[in-house]
């Protein structure tokens, strides 16, 4: 006796209807435009055949404005789990072909359910946003739905990684859900994200602007700093998500996917010596240094188009996953400004949550001087970096390439901010301030009497203090190393420090200056 045929047929018929979303014609129209459908995106994210759907047969319960006659397949959001590589990952994908992907009570409930499951199971969540916004017919229930999703985002934050893909419109309050996740990937051209768009801005303030200026991926990647990655299309966005997942653990009590099977190689890399310009005033493109430091020059840069004076991202050093924070002396002299501080601090905190060791490369003349910086709050923004480093308990390895002056030296994970090991190149200049400024203060009277003596005093100061040996002499540096030794020493330092244990007094959370 087998199961009744009709029951199977009904199931298949129901499945087919849901899989068609807003209708086969609508799905095909999207594909013709080069856009993926909600389900295409999940199929692309997960290994074939591993998608397990949650709540396929969900129905809304709205009886207003004729909604009782409308069926919304899966209520406009496809949720479930699947495998990325060898690890399970939870995801939801909003279906723009179903009522514009609008969020109603059931839609929000499904999102919250999958997030709860991810939390319990300790797996990352990928949130694919493609929605016209609140489902107006459902009124305040829809608003409440957003609130519930935001709360879940916050609840999961710091326990499992959350990665948002903005693949279509993401307007008004809806934009706060991706903003509460760890990383945002935005697809250029087809996606936009804003709290108030050009029409509302014009109506409210009279200011004219374009969508490209306020809501495009380019604007968010370069100016507002709201997003972390720009993708060319859906497939590229999902490739970025997969790449990102390859560096991070599934949850906060697991280690990142290190590859510790390879033997430690301590060979020198003469190419690194050659990167260092003879004239200490000339910039080094720090991405070249990173390229030589990480395995196979494989570096996933985060926020590459925002605050380019600091470079952050993920790589592996002889198999060990690291987060790298590096001053970029080729942009704005590597000075740390408000945006650079925010960018670095957020990245450091992500690494700390998910047990990713931090490697810091220092080459900065200091915090950027200027009225705009002071009035913009460089004190509280710069303090975020100090706070983030000081609070991080993961292995912290610092390499001082060249300039390390004043507060910026401290802010770039100095020994005093808790670095476990600090290496310095012979080109390192670790001092409280630059020679010119220091001499003007130290020898004010002498220079007032005889301005000609200033040059010699500056040269003397530089020779004595613009080196790693003053700091090394005071025990602030583990060792001075040749650039060629950097990869070997950092790799060994990481292996040695991987078993680090550090506990702090229990507390709700520190009070990072926001």
């Amino acid at each position, binding site marked *: 006796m087998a199961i009744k045929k009709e029951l199977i047929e009904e199931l298949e018929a129901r499945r087919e209807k849901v899989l068609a979303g807003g209708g086969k014609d609508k799905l095909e129209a999207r594909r013709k435009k080069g856009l993926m459908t909600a389900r295409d995106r999940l199929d692309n994210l997960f290994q074939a055949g591993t998608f397990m759907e949650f709540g396929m047969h969900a129905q809304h319960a709205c009886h207003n404005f004729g909604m009782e006659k409308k069926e919304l397949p899966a209520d406009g959001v496809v949720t479930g789990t699947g495998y990325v590589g060898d690890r399970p990952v939870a995801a939801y994908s909003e279906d723009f072909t179903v009522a514009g992907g609008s969020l109603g009570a059931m839609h929000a409930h499904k999102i919250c359910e999958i997030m709860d499951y991810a939390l319990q199971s300790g797996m990352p969540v990928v949130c694919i946003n493609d929605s016209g916004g609140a489902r107006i017919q459902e009124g305040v229930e829809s608003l409440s739905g957003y609130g519930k999703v935001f709360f879940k985002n916050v609840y999961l934050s710091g326990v499992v990684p959350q990665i948002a893909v903005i693949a279509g419109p993401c307007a008004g309050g809806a934009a706060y859900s991706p903003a509460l996740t760890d990383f945002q990937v935005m697809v250029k051209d087809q996606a936009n994200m804003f709290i108030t768009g050009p029409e509302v801005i014009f109506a409210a303030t009279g200011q004219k602007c374009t969508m490209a200026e306020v809501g495009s991926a380019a604007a968010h990647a370069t100016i507002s700093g709201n997003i972390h990655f720009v993708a060319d299309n859906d497939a*590229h966005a999902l490739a970025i998500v997969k790449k990102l997942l390859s560096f991070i653990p599934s949850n906060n009590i697991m280690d990142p996917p290190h590859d510790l099977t390879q033997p430690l190689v301590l060979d020198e890399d003469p190419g690194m010596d050659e990167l260092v310009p003879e004239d200490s005033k000339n910039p080094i493109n720090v991405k070249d240094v990173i390229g030589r430091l990480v395995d196979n020059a494989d570096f996933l840069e985060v926020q590459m188009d925002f605050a380019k004076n600091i470079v952050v991202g993920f790589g592996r050093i002889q198999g060990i996953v690291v987060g790298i924070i590096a001053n970029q002396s080729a942009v704005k*002299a590597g000075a740390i400004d408000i945006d650079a501080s925010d960018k670095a601090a957020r990245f450091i905190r992500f690494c700390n949550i998910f047990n990713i060791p931090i490697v810091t490369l220092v080459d900065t003349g200091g915090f950027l001087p200027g009225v705009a910086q002071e009035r913009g709050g460089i004190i509280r923004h710069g303090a975020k970096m100090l706070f983030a480093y000081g609070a991080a308990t993961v292995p912290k390895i610092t390499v001082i390439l060249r300039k390390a002056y004043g507060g910026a030296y401290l802010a770039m994970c100095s020994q005093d901010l808790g670095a476990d090991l600090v290496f310095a190149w012979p080109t390192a200049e670790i001092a409280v301030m630059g020679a010119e400024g220091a001499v003007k203060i130290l020898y004010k009277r002498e220079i007032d009497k005889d301005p000609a003596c200033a040059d010699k005093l500056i040269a003397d100061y530089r020779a004595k203090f613009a080196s790693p040996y003053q700091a090394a002499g005071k025990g602030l540096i583990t060792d001075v190393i040749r650039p060629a030794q950097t990869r070997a020493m950092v790799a060994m330092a990481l292996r040695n420090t991987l078993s680090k244990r550090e506990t702090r007094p229990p507390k709700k959370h520190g009070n990072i200056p926001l």
Partner: protein
Amino acid sequence: MKKLRITVDGKVFEVVVESLDEQGNPVVGQPSVPAFQQTSIAPPPTSAPKPAAAAAPAGPGTVTSPLAGRIVSIDCQLGQKVASGAQLATVEAMKMNTFVYAERDGTVAEIHVSPADVVEEGQVLVTLS
């Protein structure tokens, strides 16, 4: 559908190829979405998207100082033809030289500053025509 990666003159393109029958309809029996491939992880984006209009406040052809500092040298001459990426000036700030490059091809029409001048962030250094 099948996803292919094609390299032309060093540029990498990712294309989706779909088999069609004589009527131009997709061949049935094939999955309609790109199949997942373990090895198909694309490289991260390498080129920065052009910033929005707001990022070019000084108008076309103007080359501005990226930060406040002192001019070390002007590395181009009046009337000189320069290609995108050519070094036009050197600004010293924060104990470091910052090179200022042409963002597009052009001819040096005006040089607004001289060595040892103190410049503000965003100040126009050179105008390209």
